[in-house]
């Protein structure tokens, strides 16, 4: 199966391990992720103002480029997925805005491309039962907290990936890999997101609450699908240790890293050494590397 693929900026810079593990895992499962021949930044935010069409030009151009090469587009980053999926819906359903955007890009695009998250592809094209059978090395004994954040699931009416309050998709994926999946209260709470830019204090507090809840549920690692969540949850742990006495550091992994390990792929390119909290001792203790 060949799918067009939009890596996005972060996966090409700060989250190379996410990209490499995602691409390798997909390939091992027979999903050929073909990078768009031309792409730009998606803008990384879907505008909150309903008349801010200028912010939608960048994602419209990506979708238009995708249409020239196929009819599907896969993203790995939650934010890219969020922006592309919502822009695509708007282009499909809101005629007046579509007309303006088309005038702006001087081409015709009507929202025909179908936008996927890799998780969605795994659920719908492979299926978690089937995936479970393809696992080479079960991640037995690894207790993980699946963390969804906000943008992967919301707003439900536009994204429609899973129940935004009680999602299952990441839980089910991790369970199919053999992980022990813990229930934790903060799996859909916000990590602070872009507040990382101007208020490290707020992001630290929000991210701490998430990690605290995961730790309290007995998790040994937190799993995410978003590079910004990863940054807030992983990188801030140094500050957290200084601020919150008794805080135990906990590795934060991308779901693709665990997927790749479970599929028996050589993890050299997975960027496991680049994490602030090194996950390798935990993985090694479960016989994974």
């Amino acid at each position, binding site marked *: 199966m060949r799918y067009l693929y939009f890596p996005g900026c972060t996966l090409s810079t700060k989250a190379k391990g996410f990209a490499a593990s995602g691409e390798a895992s997909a390939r091992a499962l027979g999903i050929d992720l073909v990078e768009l021949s031309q792409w730009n930044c998606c803008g990384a935010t879907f505008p909150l103002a309903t008349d801010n069409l200028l912010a939608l030009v960048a994602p419209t151009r990506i979708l238009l480029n995708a249409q020239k090469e196929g009819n599907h587009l896969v993203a790995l980053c939650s934010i890219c997925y969020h922006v592309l999926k919502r822009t695509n819906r708007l282009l499909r359903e809101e005629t007046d805005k579509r007309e303006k955007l088309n005038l702006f890009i001087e081409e015709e695009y009507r929202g025909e491309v179908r936008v996927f998250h890799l998780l969605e592809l795994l659920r719908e094209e492979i299926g978690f039962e089937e995936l479970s059978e393809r696992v080479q090395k079960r991640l037995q004994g690894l207790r993980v907290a699946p963390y969804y954040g906000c943008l992967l699931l919301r707003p*439900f*009416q536009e994204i429609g990936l899973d*129940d935004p*309050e*009680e999602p299952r998709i990441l839980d089910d994926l991790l369970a199919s890999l053999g992980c022990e999946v813990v229930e934790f*209260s903060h799996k859909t709470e916000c990590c602070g997101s872009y507040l990382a830019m101007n208020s490290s204090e707020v992001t630290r507090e929000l991210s701490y609450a998430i990690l605290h809840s995961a730790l*309290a549920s007995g998790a040994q690692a937190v799993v995410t699908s978003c590079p910004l969540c990863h940054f807030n949850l992983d990188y801030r742990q140094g500050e957290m240790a200084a601020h919150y006495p008794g805080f135990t550091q906990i590795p934060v992994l991308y779901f693709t890293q665990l997927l790749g390990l479970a599929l028996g792929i050589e993890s050299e390119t997975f960027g496991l050494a680049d994490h602030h909290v090194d996950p390798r001792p935990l993985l090694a203790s479960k016989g994974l590397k």
Partner: protein
Amino acid sequence: MRKVGVFVCHCGNNIAGAVEVERVTEALRSYPGVAYSIDYLYVCSDPGQDLIKEAIAERDLDGVVVAACSPVMHETTFRRTVAAAGLNPYLCEVANIREQCSWVHRDDIERATLKATQIIETIVEKVRHDEPLLPLAMSLVRRALIIGGGIAGLQAASDIAAAGYGVILVEREEGVGGRMAQLSGTYLNFDSTVDLLREKIEAVTRNPHVTVLTRAQVEELGGYLGDFKVKVRRQGNDEEYEVGAIVVATGYELYPQEWLSEYGGERYPDVIDGLEFERMLSPTGPTGGEIRCPSDGRVPQEVVFVQCAGSRDPERGVAYCSKICCMYTAKQAMMYKMQVPQGQAYIFYIDIRALGKGYEEFTQRGMEEHRVLYLRGKVSKVFPQDGKMMVWGADTLSGKGVEVAADLVVLATPMVPSAGAFELARKLRVATDKHGFFSEAHPKLRPVESLTPGVYLAGACQAPKDIPEAVAQGSAAAAKVLSLFSQEKITHDPIVAVVDSELCAGCGICVEVCPYEAREIHPLTKIAVVKEVLCQGCGACLVACPNKASQLRNFTPTQVMAMIGALV
């Protein structure tokens, strides 16, 4: 040749503001067949109607056209008027020059005037070919079917039976009493619902006119107003009944908690809904009236009540207000405080809707005497933490987030139509709204009737309601049934389809298209026949019939062609 009188209404300024009524009246005066033409300020007024009566008598009119508002408004009025003057009412027609002309052409008086004239001319053509008709007589079985044995159905049953007419009460469950039997007590005075119901149930079950069928459901409905044929499946057997009227009182259930996953109902034992809490408070409930956490049986010291849990929330639940929750939540919080005086009750609310006699005072009592803590804001999330249920909410008055570590969380989930209501509505051929509640015939003026003649509505099957409202509606539906039963005979509008037996080939297409099952192919003659009392005169068969054998009385091809002829 027929002598038609034309009465052009100004409707104050509604018509006269866009249509030059004097010019229209003048133009009609010379139209073929028009013997008399006059305009008047309000033809529907008493003097306006007198004008029609006098003209019929003095000018010997045998056809009347009233050019006014939509026939939906006043056709019946004017037909009654001409009947009073001795003319067959079906020789009177209404030409709609308001909704279909003056209201939509306010900016072009010239063309509006021309259009009004033409509309009236077409109706004059129709009246010239109208035949005098007599209403069709129908049979009337003076026995009522009541579907649902909750408080609304019981009230309707007892009122109808008290007037001496037979009642068949069909109840799906083991016994009657419905939701009210599951409640702990009423609001305002904490009366025992079980005691209140006992009287009502005895009044119904002891009345010799009432047959109560429990564990029974309506399987099929045939027939029509005055003469319904009902098949009831009871404990596995089918039974047939004949009734003249039906009262639907199928009640409600609560919105499924699992659809509000952020609150964790059904997932966490200590998150329950309002009805579950009622069972806990009820002396006949599983705990004998003791308030206990379902998880471990401890007495909850902190209880959070969440109002509007899924109501007034189009994104996660339903858009409407469930109406009774503000009151029953206040009652539940007060009953909790009476039982656990040292405990704390919190109520999260959007606003308090205490719209009823004594209701506002009741909620105030909860706040002042029982120290129930009201927090204005929504709850965003409930999750377990350290053996408690952590409730996250907002207090919009202080502008701050609130966290409560509660022992028990009670969700005031909205009332929704009871399971199977939609299927029943289809069997009864009654419309439902987008939420599945049964639709009333008119939201203001006909609240207990459905649009299906002979089918009436009572209680929460129509919309969320509390006990006194359900009782009032049960009585109102009973009054409608009784006014039907007290008539000597009932009649049906004679504007129905007829079949020209010379032209009918018996193809059966009309049987397929008829939405009212008013058609069949006669077993002997093999041509189509019309069951007149079922026919609603919709005209579907006219269009479908390839031979033009199906015709509608007073909408014959001759008439329609003459009407078109007036226009072109």
